[in-house]
């Protein structure tokens, strides 16, 4: 074994470490600090379709109707989810019962996932008091809106396990973005405009 090889062997552990960190894309600038787990969970209100981030809690439509009154939802959305100045929350009675696109742009019925409804009530309601609802209140309100739209029974309990499983009529009737698209490509292949 030559001296050179010996030297290389001595540095081998270091080389492996360097290669390893380069592989994991080491930071280039080292600017910014690491948030604590508590900071992340305090900020992280985005709920994905699988409901992984849903907090513990529970509620049903009966309880939701009470919350709806107590929190003043009536003022903007009407006594039963229609008739106020804010968007309606109950599907219209037009169109085919099988086509969620015929029922209007009504969040609790057109949304493909139950989690979107929970997420939006949690982040955006009530007006001027956003972020004040407890998880139980959000589960209850979501259950109430689903009940009003004939998706669940009045006494059905929604929690972090059952909510993502609520089958939304629009689950597979919406169009995802084309998976072939990447930057630099036109919007639609073979479309001249």
């Amino acid at each position, binding site marked *: 074994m030559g001296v050179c090889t010996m030297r290389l062997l001595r540095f081998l552990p270091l080389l492996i470490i360097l290669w390893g960190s380069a592989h994991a*894309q080491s930071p280039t600038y080292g600017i910014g600090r690491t948030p604590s787990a508590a900071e992340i969970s305090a900020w992280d209100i985005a709920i994905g379709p699988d409901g992984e981030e849903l907090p513990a809690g529970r509620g049903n439509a009966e309880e939701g109707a009470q919350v709806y009154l107590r929190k003043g939802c009536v003022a903007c959305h009407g006594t039963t989810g229609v008739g106020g100045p804010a968007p309606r929350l109950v599907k219209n009675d037009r169109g085919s019962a099988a086509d969620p696109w015929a029922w209007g742009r009504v969040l609790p019925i057109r949304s493909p996932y139950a989690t979107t409804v929970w997420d939006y009530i949690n*982040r955006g309601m009530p007006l001027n008091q956003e972020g004040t609802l407890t998880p139980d209140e959000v589960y209850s309100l979501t259950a109430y809106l689903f009940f009003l739209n004939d998706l669940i029974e009045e006494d059905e309990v929604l929690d972090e396990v059952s909510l993502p499983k609520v089958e939304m009529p629009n689950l597979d009737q919406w169009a995802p973005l084309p998976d072939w*698209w990447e930057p630099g490509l036109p919007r639609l292949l073979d479309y001249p405009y």
Partner: protein
Amino acid sequence: MGSKKTDRRAFLKQSAAIAGGVTLGAAKPAIGQNPGPVSFTKGSDELVAYGERSQFVTTTRIPHGGRASPDAFGLDFHIATPLQDSVGVITPSSLHYIGTTRGSFVPEIDPTEHRLMIHGMVDRPLIFTMEDLKRLPSVTRMHFIECAGNRANSRHTTVQESHGMTSCAEWTGVLLSTLLNEAGLQDGANWIVAEGVEEVKGASSIPISKAMDDCLICYGMNGEAVRPQQGFPLRLLAPGFEGILSVKWLRRIKVVDQFYMTYNDYGHLRQQADDAALSMQIGPKSVITAPSGGQQLPGRGFYEISGLAWSGGGAVAKVEVSTNGGESWNDAEIRGTAHPMAHTRFTMQWNWDGSESTLMSRCIDELGSAQPMRAQVGEFWNQASGEPVRVRGHDNSIMPWRVESDGSVHNALA
């Protein structure tokens, strides 16, 4: 020669006498000078510190789409920029169009308190202060933003109503890819969710390929800090994509495995695949801003036709203008540089003979995509002729303006 010199000397003496004994205001104008404006604005500390436009320039933004902005609650929703008065390609920050999630108050954010968090499917979650972000390598780019709802119809009377939900600014900030590389993307990271700090915490999902390509995290706009209505102190910019993705008051980016279907995403959901594909990226588009609806030509003769062209697919390659309703087309001149995903000013010289004329413009972008007539869109999708055409996805159809023989200009959409 000698007499001229004497005249000059006499004039100087006289001027000195006037300056010494009489107030300036009473002085008669010197030969060759026209009377000046009748009134002047005295300097003030306020105007020295921060200037304002002329009192004679009164062009303003207007609420868009029939909903009041601000509404009864004080929420701003959709507000359109006055393209009819635009010159060049930069939209002044005070006139930049506004769109918000649901309607929003403008948050008053102390930039020293503001933080941007990047977390989720990354090796190293990170929190940045504004100071941190300004230390990182910056880029400055011209980009337009356009609202998905910028759809012209026959009831619109001006270009502000028909096309005012787009604007263009010079944006400065850090590439989002710089931040995502600092955090280290994990395998399976396919989307990001970007979220604002306003009361509704508006959030949009963006494919990772776009996020890593050219998205910007902006703290600068038109040479100063981003304006509060545009997301102060920090906004995301997704060049060429529908405006709702350019999240304002940005506080958080969560890297995730799948399309997260936020409220914003749900609101722009499409039923048909073609519609969805044609919605995300803005197609090649242009509009003549002068002469345009509601304007009045004072008489026949020379005019410079002027307008804006843009595309989400890249830079504008070419603009054509027709003055006879699309029977024939001429190349317009591109003014300045055509930047990728930026408004581009085009002009064409025109001698109006006083007859009724229909003016149109057509944009062709660097991908070779061309702005269509509505009838062409109908033909492409085999729509029965005679039916009104609803352009699928984002509306990038050609806008016709009809100049009547009396010089008045009108929307010529059927």
